[in-house]
Each structure stands twice: as C-alpha cells, then as structure tokens.
C-alpha cells in the first residue's frame, strides 16, 4: 500500500514535491528601454521560431498592433486602426493618468498573494490595450512575453480595456525559447469588457522544464459582454498555477473557458478557472482537456451561480497516456440562487487500444494513431481559432504520439 501513500493525499499536496525554491531565481531585471519599435529588434531564427510556436508572427504585417517583452525590453508596433491602442503600461500611466485609478489592480486584488504583491511593489510593466466604443478589430492582435536569460525573473502587468460594443481577438504567447531551462514568470492580467463587448483571449505557453509560472488573471464583464478564454500549453513548466477569475457583473454576460494541456514527468499543472455569475441570465462554460504523460495535472473549475437564470456547465476530461502521473478533475459548481441551472461532467481514462488498433489496421503506425486520437480529444470546437492555432494543437498531439520521452 506504500506506493499509494502519495496518491491518497490531496493531489494539491503534490505541489510541495514540485519543490519550488524561489531563491534560485535572479531578481527582476531593470527595464532596458522604455519602449522601442520592432525595427530596432533583431532576433535570430531560433527565437522567431519559438515565437511562432506560441502563435506569434512578429513580422507579419496583417496584425493590428503587436507587443513584445523580450526580457525587460519592450517593443511594440502602433495599431493602424483608429480607436485601438497598445502602449507599455508605464507609458500609458503617463499619457492617461486617470486609467491608474480606474483599472490598476481593480480586477485583481493586489493583496491576493505574494505574487500580486510583487507585481505591485515592482510596479511591473506590461501592455495596456484599449479598444474604443464600437470598434471591431477583425485581425488578431499579437502580444508576446519572451524570457531569454537563464534563471531570470519576469514580472509583468497587463491591462485590456474593451469599451462598450468593442471587439478584440488577442493572442498572447509566453515562451522561454528553445534552450532555456529555468526562470520565474509572474504575470498580472486584468481585463475589462464593456457592455456588449467581446474579448477572445488566447494564451499559448511553451516553457523550459525548470520554469515556475504564476499568472494572476481577472476579468470583469459588463452587460451582454462576452469573454472567451483559450489556454494552450504546448510544453508545461515545472510548476504552474493558473486559476483566472471572471466576474460576470452585467445581465446577460457570458464567459467561456477552454484549457488544453499536455503534461510530462516532473511537471505540476494546476489549471482551471473560477467564474462568478453575479448578473441575471449570465452564462458560463468551462472545458478542460489534459493529456498526461506522467506529471501532475489538476483541472479545477468553479462556476458560481449567484443570480436568476445563471447557466453553467463544466466539462473536464483527461487522457492518461502513462502509468505514472496524476490527473485530478475537480469540476465545481456552487449555486447561490435557486434559479441557477448548473451541470458538470468529468471523464478520465486511458487511450482506447481498440481505437488505436483500428487506425493501425487502416494503415497508420502506432504513433500516428495515438497522435490522431489525442488530436481528436483535444480538438474541441473553439472560437477565435485559426489555422495557426490548429497547428499548435496538432503539435501538442504529436508530442503525445512520441510517448513518454
């Protein structure tokens, strides 16, 4: 029975075993520049490839505004669309002093924990994005956080404001490049979605094996606003805890979360989301998919129905591709109003060998068959998903075809 001793504990206890020792990381770097344009940036092909792997194409001109934090340096291109802004946060505070009062630590509580406190104390830089009333941005806006120094600490603070009726499709790629092993990434993100506005936020992570990542994200959605959050982890860090909160304040507001990740030995991923449905007729859906090759995965979803006709559904599914490792699905529902309607489903299992054999009998080899099944498992219908992102999913699935190594 000894071998099960660890498993009998709450899976969250496993995080202690992930052994996060923060003293290993260097202090947060001083900003190198206040900001600069992309012409002044030179990246080698390896770095460009790493950015592509997280959905970011810096030199593709179609994108309406881009933003890159390369270590402590900030680069950006100015959006050519009237009513669309992307500005380094520190600069934005100088240009629009009023936004600090209005948005800064207004969705995330700065006292939440040591990481939000760090971001506050360090006055962390990041992006400020604002889309003015009724402006609809068709092309996705691309932002990237690139860590390029071994054992460095990156601490950022991002704010996105969509005024009433505005629409934005935002892609944020976070990566440590191909060769970096370790570092600490802290990121506070606050989103404010106005009446009838819609934000699709797609986040793609690709980390080195010894990274520790602490995103702290909160979103406030006003009447009939919509928030779609897609999270893909191509390669997980050693430790990540990502549990964004969404507050559906206005009537008819709506949120949809999707998280897709593959986990490997020695990693700990606690990925989920909490949605508080405060407004009448609000709706929330949370879909989580995990493929585990031997790490610890916790899928936490908590939907809280606190208003009339709040509708919520959580769906957590996991595929175990290894004998080692843990997937713990915690699909949570909390009704705080008699007329809230809520449901959940959760399924964890190993890959069906009958399906693998079937695909083999059609002419695939075993790797191809597994990758295809995993791809089908991960390929949930996603809003705001373009071909590039589909390719990312395919990459995650192909990693699965290669088994445990």
């Amino acid at each position, binding site marked *: 029975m000894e071998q099960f001793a660890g498993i009998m504990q709450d899976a969250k206890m496993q995080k202690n075993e992930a052994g996060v020792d923060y003293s290993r990381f260097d202090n947060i770097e001083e900003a190198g520049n206040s900001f600069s344009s992309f012409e002044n940036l030179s990246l080698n092909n390896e770095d460009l490839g790493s950015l592509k792997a997280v959905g970011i194409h810096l030199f593709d001109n179609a994108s309406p505004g881009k933003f890159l934090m390369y270590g402590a340096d900030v680069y950006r291109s100015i959006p050519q669309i009237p009513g669309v802004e992307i500005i380094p946060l520190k600069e934005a505070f100088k240009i629009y002093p009023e936004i600090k009062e209005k948005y800064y630590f207004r969705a995330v509580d700065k006292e939440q924990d040591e990481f939000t406190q760090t971001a506050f104390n360090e006055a962390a830089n990041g992006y400020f994005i604002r889309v003015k009333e009724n402006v609809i941005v068709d092309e996705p806006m691309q932002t990237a956080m690139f860590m390029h120094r071994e054992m460095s600490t990156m601490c950022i603070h991002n704010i996105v404001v969509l005024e009433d009726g505005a629409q934005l499709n935002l892609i944020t790629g976070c990566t440590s490049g191909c060769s970096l092993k370790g570092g600490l990434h802290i990121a506070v993100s606050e989103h404010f979605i106005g009446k009838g506005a819609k934000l699709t936020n797609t986040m793609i992570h690709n980390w080195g094996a010894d990274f520790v990542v602490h995103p702290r994200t909160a979103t406030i959605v006003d009447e009939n606003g919509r928030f779609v959050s897609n999270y893909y982890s191509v390669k997980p860090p050693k430790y990540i805890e990502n549990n964004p909160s969404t507050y559906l304040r206005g009537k008819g507001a709506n949120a949809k979360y999707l998280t897709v990740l593959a986990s490997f030995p020695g990693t700990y991923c606690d990925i989920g989301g909490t949605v508080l449905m405060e407004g009448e007729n609000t709706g929330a859906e949370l879909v989580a998919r995990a493929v585990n090759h031997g790490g610890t995965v916790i899928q936490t979803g908590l939907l809280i129905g606190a208003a009339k006709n709040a509708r919520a559904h959580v769906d957590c599914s996991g595929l175990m591709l290894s004998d080692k490792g843990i997937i713990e699905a915690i699909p949570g529902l909390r009704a705080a109003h008699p007329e809230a309607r809520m449901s959940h489903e959760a399924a964890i299992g190993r890959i*069906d*060998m*009958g*399906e693998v*054999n*079937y*695909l*083999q*009998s*059609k*002419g*695939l*080899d*075993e790797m*191809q068959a597994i990758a*295809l*099944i995993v*791809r*089908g*498992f*991960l*390929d*949930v219908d996603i809003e705001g998903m373009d071909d590039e992102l589909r390719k990312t999913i395919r990459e995650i699935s192909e990693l699965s075809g290669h088994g445990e190594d």
Partner: protein
Amino acid sequence: MLTINNLHVSVKQKEVLGGVNLSIPENEVHALFGANGSGKSVLISTIMGYPEYKVTRGEILFRGQNITELNIDERVKLGLGISEQRPPTIKGVKLEYLVNLLAPEKMNDETFRIKMLEHFGMDKFLNRNINDGFSGGEIKKSELFLLLLTRPDFLVLDEPDSGVDPEHLKMIGAMITEILQKKKQEGERCNPQARSSGLIATHSAEILNYIHTDKAHIMLDGKICCSGNPAVMMEQIRALGYSYCIECQHANQEEH
C-alpha cells in the same frame, strides 16, 4: 497467397477457433459463410492481427511468410487490408484527417475526387468524425472507401453487405470490385484476370451477384467444415440451414 494452418484462437482464455485450415491462392476471392457466433469475425480479426485474439496453435502464412506474430501495422505494410463488421467510433477525429494521413496525394487528385469521393457519395462524410453517428450502411461504405485509398493486395471484408439496402448494395459491390482491380489498374501485369485476393464473410447471396467469388467456406463452431462452389453452397444453406454442413462434410471430403 494466404494459408492458414491448424489455427487455434482464444479470446479471454476461451477457445473460439479450434483448428482452422484455409488456403486462398493469388487472384482468388473466397466467401466465408457461417451461423452467427461461429467465428467468422474472430478469424478475420486474427488474420489482421488484433491483439485480443490470441493464437494458441497453428500459423498464418502470407505469401509464404509467417505473419502470426506480426503487429497490425506490419501486416498492413505487407498488403493486408480490412473492412470491419463493427468498427469503433473515434471521437473528435474527422474522417478527413485520417484520409489525409493515408493518402494525401489522392485528396488533391481531381480524378480521384470525382470518380471515387463524389461517385460513392463519400464527400459529405469527410467532415464528420470517424463512424460517429454513421448509419449501418454508411459505416460499410466508409470502411470500403478507406480501402480504396490504399488498395491492399489482400482484403478481408467482414460482412460488407449487412444492413445495406438493395440500391446501395450495388454500390458496395462496385466499390469492392474497384478495390480488387488494383493490379489491372496499376498495370503491374498484362493479365486482365489479375486482381487482388480476398476473403469475404457474408450471410447473403446478393453480394455474390456483384463480386465474383471463386470458392466458399462454411464455418461451424470455430472450424471450417466444408468448402465448395459459392452459389451452390448458399442455395443449400438457404434450403437446409447450416445443419446441412454437418451432413455435407462427408460428401465434400469424397469430392476432393
């Protein structure tokens, strides 16, 4: 081309095939008859190499090579192909994904698209998940369509006709004939008779109107009890039921 010697197969520790002997020469297609539960699907799945069917004795030779221990994909590489009686549903995997992996070049080939995809009405299934919600007849068509992509040298078809309406039966027949025509089409040989070989498990005589079969075998309780002319045997089964087998076993032996 395919020779099976004294094949014993167990499923979950229970013997299901008790010494099957069967030989199918090159360019021949044989029919496999037999009552429900007699072991036809088990034989076909064992030929294909499904691991839940354990060969406890005997051997399977393909073109003289012993393939008894080979994996499914190794057998496919050697030229075996299967159409299953009840294939699984694969959630989230569009038929198109599989087709693109199996034969990317064919999907860009205009002639193939018109002659095969549209002609056999498979275009509207590409966007659907594999076998998910397919009707009985649609499953059969999809199974055969996948074989059309790879055109194996030896086909094992497990009831490709069951649950298929008369009109579609014609199409199923045409698909099988098309798959069998591999060699002629690829011009490997000048012999117009040359075609792929195969074994078709079926309960109906109708399909045999569309595909020429050279010989038939009847399976009874995990053994092949008699073999002969497909049409004649089917007539007998119709008239007398499978119990006729037991009696005919002797007659059949005298014939040889």
